[in-house]
């Protein structure tokens, strides 16, 4: 938490009263779940700090419950429906962190249908909600964002962009990739074959593509991760674009790569599941990792089934991202203005990145597969 404090925040109140953020939030909303003595202590801390809720109480989502407690409803707005959201293992971990944390705070999440139909936008306008989590960039949620603003609902974005009006929880994607690339360079690698996520922009392609110019890549994730490779000084020998982040797509990429005249020394995949697929394709050809070729991922998913390998990857803790989003939105609902939160990404050192094989041309393993 940054030291600067132009305005007392809920966190400061919680700190001073020696309670959790959630307890402070509940106490200031006079929840009966907080003991009287604790509430008095928290209110005193709030007064002493001159703490003032940012927002006036929002439209209450729900009636006072028979147990005397008011439940908090958090809306989750994505560009796609829940079915599609859950096809992405990384989004599943983010949503798990969100749901686990909300549950602990006695709050629930409501997944709204995607705002591509006016009927769904109307639901967003009427559904009982105290605040919203935007899964995709606010720009991709046009009509939805207008409704959220009209309802003056606190909001937090999981995909913030420069210039957004909605505060967000974001990754320092670029930095994470750069750290990984410096590991590669330190081991002696000079270039990598990159297996990318879909470039986005509505079309789907699978296969080797010309090394793209930045403007040709609508997806920010793909763009930033490629850019970080360039910036850290590693060459890109070829780019293989996949249709989706899945093990099956990774296997297809791996099969295409082993058919190349010369096996690359390093395959940098833009997601862990793609890397898992590449590993399985290599294993079928008895190509050793990392002796013959190094493979890296991005995401830091738990992939116990690729044991004994541990994928060298960039660790983005999806669960933690979801957890933070939950804390931010709960604080915002309690009247605390959420602040953007940037999460540093660490490299997960695994077993799949090693020095490049000694003989670059006509290496036995490459020959046997050409």
């Amino acid at each position: 938490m940054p030291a600067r404090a132009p305005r007392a925040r809920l966190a400061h109140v919680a700190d001073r009263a020696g309670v959790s953020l959630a307890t402070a939030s509940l106490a200031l909303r006079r929840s009966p779940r907080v003991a009287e003595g604790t509430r008095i202590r928290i209110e005193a801390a709030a007064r002493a700090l001159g703490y003032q809720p940012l927002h006036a109480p929002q439209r209450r989502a729900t009636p006072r419950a028979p147990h005397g407690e008011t439940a908090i409803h958090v809306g989750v707005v994505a560009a796609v429906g829940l079915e599609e959201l859950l096809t992405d293992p990384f989004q599943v971990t983010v949503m798990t962190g969100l749901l686990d944390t909300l549950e602990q705070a006695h709050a629930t999440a409501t997944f709204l249908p995607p705002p591509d139909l006016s009927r769904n936008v109307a639901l967003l306008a009427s559904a009982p909600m105290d605040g919203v989590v935007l899964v995709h960039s606010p720009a991709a949620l046009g009509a939805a964002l207008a409704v959220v603003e009209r309802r003056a609902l606190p909001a937090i974005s999981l995909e913030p962009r420069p210039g957004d009006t909605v505060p967000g929880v974001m990754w320092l994607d670029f930095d994470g990739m750069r750290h990984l690339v410096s590991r590669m360079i330190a081991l002696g690698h000079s270039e990598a074959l990159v297996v990318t996520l879909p470039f986005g922009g509505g079309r789907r392609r699978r296969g080797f593509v010309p090394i793209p110019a930045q403007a040709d890549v609508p997806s920010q994730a793909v763009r930033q991760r490629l850019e970080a490779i360039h910036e850290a000084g590693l060459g890109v020998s070829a780019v293989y674009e996949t249709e989706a982040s899945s093990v099956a797509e990774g296997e297809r990429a791996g099969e295409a790569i082993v058919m190349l005249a010369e096996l690359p020394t390093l395959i940098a995949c833009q997601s862990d599941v793609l890397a898992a697929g590449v590993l399985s394709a290599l294993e079928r050809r008895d190509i050793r990792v990392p002796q013959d070729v190094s493979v890296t991922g991005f995401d830091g998913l738990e992939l116990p089934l690729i044991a004994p390998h541990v994928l060298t990857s960039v660790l983005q803790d999806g669960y933690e991202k979801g957890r933070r989003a939950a804390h931010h939105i709960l604080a915002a609902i309690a009247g605390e203005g959420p602040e953007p939160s940037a999460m540093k990404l660490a490299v997960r050192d695994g077993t799949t990145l090693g020095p490049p094989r000694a003989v670059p041309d006509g290496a036995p393993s490459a020959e046997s597969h050409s």
Partner: protein
Amino acid sequence: MTGVRLRDVAERAGVSISAASICLRHGDGFAAETIARVRAAADQLGYAVPSGVRVPKAERVGVAGVVLHDTPVNALSCAHTLEILRGLAGELTPMGFGIEVLPAEQGPGAACAYDNAAVDIVFYLSLAEPAHATSEALRMRGIPTVHLQSTLDGPIAAVRTDDVTPMRELMSHVVGLGHERIAVLTQRSGYNVRAGLVADARWESAQALYARDRLRGIAEAGVTPFAVYEARASTIGEGLAAGRVLLDLHPRPTAVVCLSDMLAAGVMVAARERSIRVPEDLSVTGWDGVDLPTLAPHRLTTVLQSGTQKGMLLAAFGAAVLAGRAPTPFRVPQYVLLGTTTGPVP
């Protein structure tokens, strides 16, 4: 009366729609003053108070509740549960429904969440058990509840499955391969469940109905388990922990029969850690038939049931309930699927 909607009443009384709805019916949990204010607003506007418990279609919130059967992390770590959720969401989203995820009955804040859920219907991802205290709370609020699944002779649910027969068939496959030291990895989800070897392995003692039926299938095949381990969730991590215990037993079991594919995958990892070859040294079976691509080149010997299909049928059943019908549960067949993880006893 024509034209006057619950929304107008709520607005006039200065309460939410769901509050207005409750106040016009039983008023549970609301101050007498609030109830009087809402009823007065309805009178003034000429709003006809619905006589039945069901909220008229036009007044639907547009949100369906989904009650998880475990903590979110445990529920969403199971590929089969994800399939069910995706199947359900894939039907509800095109109908325009939002989906409110509600905690399991023993979960923190469950009572509060059920009392406050502003939903038209609630789907339970758990098996239908005879008594659910919180379903009662929802029923009192006039919110219909639908359970995902039940055994053939269990309470009403969207889907009925016979778990006894496929387990009996799977066991005759395993026994036919010559296995005698057969360990069973069962599972009980929920809060505050402890994982570990269990002494009482009789199927009648199993808490979860589906586990009871599957254990019964094992007994009916004439197999007395060599050891029984109860995991507390259907996840690879739980399967790994169980596998580490079961595979370190002396003598070691030659087959581990798991009640889910996630648990079986965890046992496969434990076997790999110990350089135990599958299926040469150890046979492993699962249940569900989920897609586990990182298990390649292995395919689990398992019992196939489609989670996606179950989720879709749950939605269809719920839609019928909302339309005021009393639908008949769907029968979903399950098949033994032979993979590469079972082989002759070593």
